[in-house]
């Protein structure tokens, strides 16, 4: 009997060991009945293989709480999941960890129903406690998470309440249009792993790049497998992922995704052409042409997705500067503050030439901040005046500028109009754009000097010292909705680039923009919001606080054998549906 029970114990031990080892692989095949799995539409792919993509630099952290650089965010996007996700392809809100949500009639309360029976990548179950913990961390002022700003409405943080093990309610201080979009990219954290660190006040210090893969767990399609500094990050399939294809197969299809660290775009393009990299995004127009020449022989596809949400612009320094420290800038601000001066500059810029010469026709000219890529919010009525030096000259004359016999433009006091434009040489397109603008403005008699500075130096002058006259920069929004843009367009916003020192609006048009941007956030009717934001676009195009020039097209590529490749114009252009990418059979075997 004793022998039998010992033998029984051995069998139980063998069975439980097998269960422990085999459970992830069993879970990997198909979703279990009690799981609230999200079934996706699209091609049914084949399991297996690994995909190689590239990053220009090592991520700084794997911690969603304090990640700010794009490389960390890109990696984190595959390791973690959010409650409601903005679909980059449709630009609409999709259910994610919250399988459904209800909005109260006053627009101030959101009740989210969470998925049941799903697990983190380490096999630990997910429930409302994880959501409560995550929002507690993000909203904690001591943590200094960048997400906190996004979770504030009219300057007040949103409140979260647990209504059940799989139900939570979010209370907003004011009605907030499209509030469900606030939850996008707010990654849900594993309470079972991070609570001790949070209680010790060390939440920002966990999950650095030296963390062992077994200590990191999320709800994303992949989990960390290996990180070799300066070389690569390898992610492996999360066997507990909560999405399945239309045949019931658990996603993702790929066994691994490897991010190679390739420091420059040119090197990235060469390695893509050589077949070392399988999918490539953010290709410059020149490199796109270089790849296009050999695309048939090299068996890869290239896609020009048209204008994205990014726009490049020229802007003048309208900050209040110390006349003792920067008398020259202050003197020139007398020109820059005149709308007619900015309008003349805008009229003189040959946007078509920039599209043709800088972007090889793979960009679209723009006159305001909403690009044609943002179909939902584009105001088609904003005028697109063609380049006109006559109109520019007329505008300048109307405010006292005239040309000397030697062709130099002078102001009413006879001072020659000369100013500098900051450029960042590491962005070849913007530097070329500045060179063309320099030539365009020389035709008005303006003397423009280009000042190439490192990106960090440009940022320091624009955001901290205000020691510049004009600069060429680009902005890209993570969302098509105007709400995240409020920081750019309202006075006092953290990205109100041209006048960061202003606490109150100094012009009527800026007052109107402030009012429209603030009121549209509380409008629950889409048409009313659209009308308000249309007017903002008209004001930007009319008064040129920033002179919008072009929106570069989103240019991407992938090997023909990559299935499920469905690039989008926002978010992570090519990996937003990494869980649905797969290798078509004949090539997957080679990987």
């Amino acid at each position, binding site marked *: 009997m004793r022998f039998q029970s010992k033998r029984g114990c051995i069998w139980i031990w063998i069975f439980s060991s097998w269960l422990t080892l085999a459970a992830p692989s069993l879970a990997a095949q198909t979703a279990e009945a009690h799981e609230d799995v999200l079934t996706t539409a699209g091609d049914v792919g084949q399991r297996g293989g690994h995909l190689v993509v590239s990053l220009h630099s090592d991520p700084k952290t794997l911690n969603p709480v304090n990640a700010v650089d794009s490389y960390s965010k890109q990696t984190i996007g595959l390791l973690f999941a959010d409650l409601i996700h903005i679909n980059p392809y449709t630009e609409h809100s999709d259910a994610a960890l919250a399988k459904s949500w209800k909005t109260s009639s006053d627009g101030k309360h959101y009740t989210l129903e969470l998925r049941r029976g799903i697990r983190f990548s380490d096999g630990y179950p997910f429930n409302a406690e994880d959501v409560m913990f995550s929002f507690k961390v993000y909203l904690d002022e001591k943590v200094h998470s960048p997400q906190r700003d996004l979770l504030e409405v009219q300057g007040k943080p949103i409140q979260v309440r647990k209504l059940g093990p799989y139900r939570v309610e979010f209370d907003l201080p004011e009605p907030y249009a499209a509030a469900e979009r606030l939850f996008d990219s707010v990654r849900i954290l594993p309470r079972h792993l991070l609570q001790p660190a949070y209680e010790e006040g060390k939440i920002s210090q966990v999950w650095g790049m030296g963390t062992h893969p077994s200590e990191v767990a999320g709800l994303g399609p992949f989990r960390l497998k290996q990180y070799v500094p300066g070389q690569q990050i390898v992610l492996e399939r999360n066997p507990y992922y909560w999405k399945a294809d239309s045949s019931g197969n658990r996603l993702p299809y790929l066994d691994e995704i490897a991010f190679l660290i390739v420091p420059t775009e040119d090197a990235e393009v060469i390695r893509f052409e050589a077949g070392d990299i399988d999918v490539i995004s953010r290709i410059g127009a020149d490199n796109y042409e270089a790849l296009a020449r050999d695309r048939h022989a090299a068996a890869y596809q290239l896609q020009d997705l048209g204008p994205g949400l990014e726009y490049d612009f020229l802007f003048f320094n309208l900050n209040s500067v110390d006349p003792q420290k920067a008398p020259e800038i202050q003197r020139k601000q007398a020109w820059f503050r005149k709308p007619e001066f900015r309008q003349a500059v805008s009229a003189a810029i040959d946007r078509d030439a920039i599209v043709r010469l800088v972007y090889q026709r793979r960009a679209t000219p723009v006159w305001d901040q909403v690009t044609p890529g943002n179909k939902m919010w584009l105001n088609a009525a904003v005028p697109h005046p063609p380049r006109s030096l006559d109109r520019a000259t007329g505008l300048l004359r109307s405010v006292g500028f005239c040309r000397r016999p030697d062709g130099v433009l002078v102001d009413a006091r006879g001072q020659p109009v000369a100013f500098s434009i900051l450029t960042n040489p590491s962005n070849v397109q913007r530097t070329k754009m500045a060179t063309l603008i320099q030539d365009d403005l020389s035709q008005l008699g303006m003397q423009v000097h280009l000042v*190439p500075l490192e990106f960090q130096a440009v940022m320091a002058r624009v955001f901290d010292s205000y020691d510049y006259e004009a600069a060429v920069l680009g902005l890209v929004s993570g969302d098509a909705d105007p709400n995240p843009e409020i920081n750019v367009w309202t006075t006092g916003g953290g990205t109100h680039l041209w006048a960061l020192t202003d606490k109150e609006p100094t012009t009527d048009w800026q007052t109107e923009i402030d009012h429209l941007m603030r009121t549209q956030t509380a409008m629950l009717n889409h048409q009313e919001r659209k009308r308000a934001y249309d007017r903002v676009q008209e004001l930007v195009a009319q008064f040129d606080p920033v002179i919008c020039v072009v929106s570069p097209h989103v240019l991407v590529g992938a090997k023909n054998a990559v299935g499920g490749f469905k690039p989008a114009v926002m978010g992570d252009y090519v990996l937003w549906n990494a869980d649905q990418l797969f290798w078509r059979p004949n090539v997957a075997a080679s990987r």
Partner: protein
Amino acid sequence: MIRNKKLWVSAGALVLFQVPVVGASFFAPYDPAAQNRDVPSSPPTSVHFADWRGRFHLRPFVCRWVGDTNSSGFPSSHEDCSKTSSLRFFVHNQTAYNRQVLKSSRHLFGTDGTEKLFLLGTDEYGRDQFSRLLYGGQTSLGAGFLATGLSLGLGLVFGCIAGYLGSWVDDVVMRTAELFMALPWIYLLFMVRAFLPLNLEARQAFLLLIGVIGITGWARPSRLIRGVVLSVKERAYVLAARGFGVSHVSLIRRHILPEAYSVVLTQSALLIPQYILAEVTFSFLGLGVGEPQPSWGNMLANLQSYYVLKAHWWMFSPGLVLLPVFFLFYSLADSLQRRVQIIDLVN
């Protein structure tokens, strides 16, 4: 004799090389800053003798270059020989470019119509690469010559002081020289640029560049000159002159410096290409003269793009010009060095 011949061939070839650069306003057909936005990145213009009907023309002509897009939406360009312009020598054409060393409204060659002859093609803004090469040479070679002059001038002064006075003065000068030799030039220029106002004229940027290259480069020639002075000041005729009460300044000027001239000459032939390369490096990195003024360095900066490397072979021209320039300067330095050694042996 053979050595002499090599020296004169190198020197002659260098002078010949400088002529079109110094006389760029005559040899270059167009304004190097003028953008022809209809013909960006076009290859060197073909010169034709036969028209589309096959008829031969004694006077060569060029066809219109048309920028176009192919069916896939990719840029493609072609010649349209229904519009042509004949080539002419000594054409009269006033360019607007105001940074010329020698001004000339007459150019060695050009066309008599609206179609242009781009001998080395155009850059991405449609600017004539040949004109930019010649005017860019003024910047790059000019920086090399002027920075060498500054370096050798400083080197001569400090080398003489250190060698002649010796003692603690020698120590101070030589330790300072070692410090300068250890300075990283590029970071120094970054630092200097950060302290200067943003609105630097092209001329000011050029002078700044020469200043930084010249001032940081005085250490090596000064050490060599110090060595010569240390050796010469102990020679019998110098000691005799000193015994007769010749002043220090006269002693250095009349008896010591002439012995250092051959070293200075050899050093100049070595330093000029080094400083040309320094200017090219700075401008390549965007720290030298700014757009639209050309320099061989900022012209080569286009080659950082993979697309240009792959598809626009004519953009290599500044790099190809640098090769013979460096070869000729080093050949000249070698000949001068051997000549100096022969003179030393004879003495």
